[in-house]
């Protein structure tokens, strides 16, 4: 195409000397090859036919478009032929009217676009009704949208079947996030984040506890204290103190008695606060099974995004780990002993109690131990961490999300202690996060792979330990490389959260299905799907805009 345009320019440039060569012009634009000729002829015929058609449907618009097109053509020709170079002429020529076929195509596409806009406009605006009271089938205009369904079903779309008593709490959660977001962005734009150090820490801290606040508001705290009891108190204390020691060992925190006391007190204090919130009955529990609509979409998407990222990072590092594997001389005897033990103990007992044909095969399962040992040694040199990460990633990636969602709900009870139950929402969030983390791991691994070996070697030769090497050298660079991929995955997680409708959770699209089966709004699919589409688009656009910004921000000093 460019070649054609260029040589045409040359020919046309020659034209002010009155030497325009029509033979060359035709050759470039029409007769150059037989398929070009066919293309131009077919295009011209289609355009003429469509123009005549549009003349009948909407004469005024069509005539305006035709006039504009002819004027544009005039500019472009003047530009080429008579040395009359104008900005608009040059722009038209390079972008729309560069050759005969481009000129025709431009006209055709503008006409089609005009028809489409006209159709959408008449459906969405001219013939539409906006009154929420007039949504019943008998009031509808068949040629126009019934937008009244959106305000009419607003609460259903936003929160689903959530108890309306709890609405103020949803608004509080939303308000908290919006206010925090506005302050953060404002402070960032105004440059206060860099100037006032504590502000940054405070904002980060508030963001860090946001999930807890949102949980308290949207799920509530029961007076009994839920899962917080003396056992979890002890375990939590151990984890917190362990974390402190780990950070101290990594020299991220200073060791002092005061510090230790503060850390050690953190968990019990949190526990007391939690109990106090529960006792105060300010935020009585809400049945999470009633969550729905956009709120549920956002809860699932954000949870999955927050959980899958660190999990994916661990899996990616695990898959690449080069720890010393279990040596063969140890693995083989252990595997052999286990297999023999199984064959002598488990196999006879299964064979003794045969229920069906498959049991004959199943009975010899201990042989599998040898198989696994073989794979572990052969493929991973006995590196258990790499083997486990790789297996997890590949198994998860080998299963469709829907299967995993069903599995999460059906299997959850098997992992819980007797009598405990797990709400489907949590099961779905866990299952979905595991799914997402496998893909996240592969994305991050791509970034790790892209780093030159020299970066690892320089870090090693300086004496940095593995944690420091990852924290300061490898991850900052690797993650920057994969920001587009990671954000792409976040956007995917956001949109695919609509799949949870299949396991009976009514997120945004699930609610749309419920709403259109309501007699009052029966069949108002188009309006609702357009609305849902706009919401998904806004969410995705914001994420991709932020990703580009982040990329630019982190690109400092990059070659």
């Amino acid at each position, binding site marked *: 195409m460019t070649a054609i345009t260029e040589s045409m320019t040359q020919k046309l440039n020659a034209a002010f000397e009155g030497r325009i060569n029509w033979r060359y012009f035709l050759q470039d634009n029409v007769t150059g090859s037989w398929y070009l000729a066919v293309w131009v002829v077919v295009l011209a015929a289609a355009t003429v036919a469509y123009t005549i058609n549009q003349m009948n449907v909407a004469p005024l618009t069509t005539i305006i478009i035709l006039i504009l097109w002819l004027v544009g053509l005039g500019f472009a020709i003047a530009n080429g032929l008579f040395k009359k170079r104008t900005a608009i002429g040059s722009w038209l020529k390079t972008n729309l009217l560069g050759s005969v076929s481009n000129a025709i195509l431009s006209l055709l596409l503008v006409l089609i676009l005009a028809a489409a806009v006209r159709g959408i406009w008449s459906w969405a605006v001219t013939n539409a009704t906006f009154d929420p009271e007039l949504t019943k089938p008998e009031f509808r205009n068949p040629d126009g949208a019934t937008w009244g369904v959106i305000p009419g079903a607003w609460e259903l779309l936003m929160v689903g079947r959530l108890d309306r008593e709890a609405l103020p709490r949803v608004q509080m959660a939303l308000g908290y996030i919006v206010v925090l977001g506005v302050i953060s962005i404002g402070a960032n734009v105004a440059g206060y984040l860099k100037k006032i150090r504590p502000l940054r820490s405070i904002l980060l801290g508030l963001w860090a506890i946001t999930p807890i606040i949102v949980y308290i508001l949207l799920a509530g705290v029961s007076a009994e204290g839920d899962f917080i009891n003396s056992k979890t108190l002890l375990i939590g204390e151990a984890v917190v103190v362990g974390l402190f020691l780990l950070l101290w060992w990594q*020299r991220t925190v200073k060791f002092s008695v005061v510090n230790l006391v503060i850390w050690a007190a953190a968990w019990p204090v949190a526990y007391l606060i939690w109990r106090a919130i529960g006792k105060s009955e300010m935020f009585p529990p809400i049945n999470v099974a009633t969550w729905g609509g956009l709120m549920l979409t956002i809860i699932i998407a954000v949870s999955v995004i927050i959980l899958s990222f660190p999990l994916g990072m661990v899996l990616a590092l695990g898959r690449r780990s080069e720890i*010393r594997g279990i040596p063969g001389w140890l693995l083989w005897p252990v595997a052999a002993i286990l297999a023999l033990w199984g064959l002598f103990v488990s196999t006879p007992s299964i064979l003794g109690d045969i229920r069906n044909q498959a049991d004959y095969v199943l009975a010899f399962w201990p042989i599998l131990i040898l198989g696994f040992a073989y794979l572990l040694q052969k493929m991973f040199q006995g590196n258990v961490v790499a083997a486990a990460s790789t297996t997890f990633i590949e198994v998860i990636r080998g299963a469709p999300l829907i299967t995993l969602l069903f599995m999460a709900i059906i299997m959850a009870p098997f992992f819980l202690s007797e009598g405990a139950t797990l709400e489907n929402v949590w099961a779905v969030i866990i299952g979905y996060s595991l799914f997402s983390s496998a893909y996240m791991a592969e994305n991050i691994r791509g970034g790790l792979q892209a780093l*030159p070996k*020299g*970066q690892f*070697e*320089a*870090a*090693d*030769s*300086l*004496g*940095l*330990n593995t944690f*420091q090497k990852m924290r*300061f*050298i490898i991850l*900052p*660079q690797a993650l*920057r490389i994969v920001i587009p991929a990671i954000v792409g995955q976040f956007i995917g997680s956001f949109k695919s959260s609509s799949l949870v409708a299949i396991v009976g959770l009514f997120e945004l699209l699930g609610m749309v299905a419920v709403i259109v089966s309501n007699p009052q709004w029966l069949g108002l699919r188009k309006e609702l799907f357009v609305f849902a589409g706009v919401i998904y688009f806004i969410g995705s656009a914001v994420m991709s805009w932020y990703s580009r910004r982040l990329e630019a921000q*982190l690109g*400092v*000093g*990059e*070659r």
Partner: protein
Amino acid sequence: MTMNVNANEDVIVCKDVHLWYGEFEALRGVSLTVKRGDVIVILGPSGSGKSTFIRSINRLEEHGAGEIVVKGIPLTHDVRDIAEIRREVGMVFQQFNLFPHLTVMENITLAPINVRKWSREKAEETAMKWLTRVGIPEQAHKYPGQLSGGQQQRVAIARTLAMEPEVLLFDEPTSALDPEMVKEVLDVMSDLAKEGYTILAVTHEMGFARGVADRIVFMDYGEILESDHPDEFFDNPKHPRLKLFLSQILHH
């Protein structure tokens, strides 16, 4: 520098070091003893195992048999020993391997702060001292990508020196540089040699080898074939392959 207190002490002792890449034996019994303050240049044809050898001294490659002892610490699988040795042995690479996402200052202070556990002030002070030494104190707050090759390599040297290692390993530090930048890097290396650092350098810079080295080691096919004082090495080569090598590199 007060490094010569215990001159004549063996800083690096390699005994019959073998190293395999899969089936391929890249080092076939390398033995070398380096005393404190020695400057040793390693020469040899491409693929002879020079890089492999000096990289095995700080465990960037893992030797399969034989013994490497650095400052009395035997190099084993023990990560604490490896960490200890890496604190004492600095390395400068052909491709600089600066961290592109950190400023020059951050590049230099990262390891002293996190490995040596110095305060930021002390680390930055030391970093400035070294940057001044290699002649580019004004570049401290730039990113590596904004520097010339020669400047980058000098930053890399400053980064290595800031850890205060006793032994310096150079793997063809000037090979990726344009000719006019080679000298600025070689000058820094000569100064370091004079100051008493123990240096093992792989380089093709014959002038540096002849003028600065205490000893030149010739490697081929993963073995040390000759090891001698520079004058003797160049003027009176004994091993036929060294003669061939010298005739190839010196006669054009």
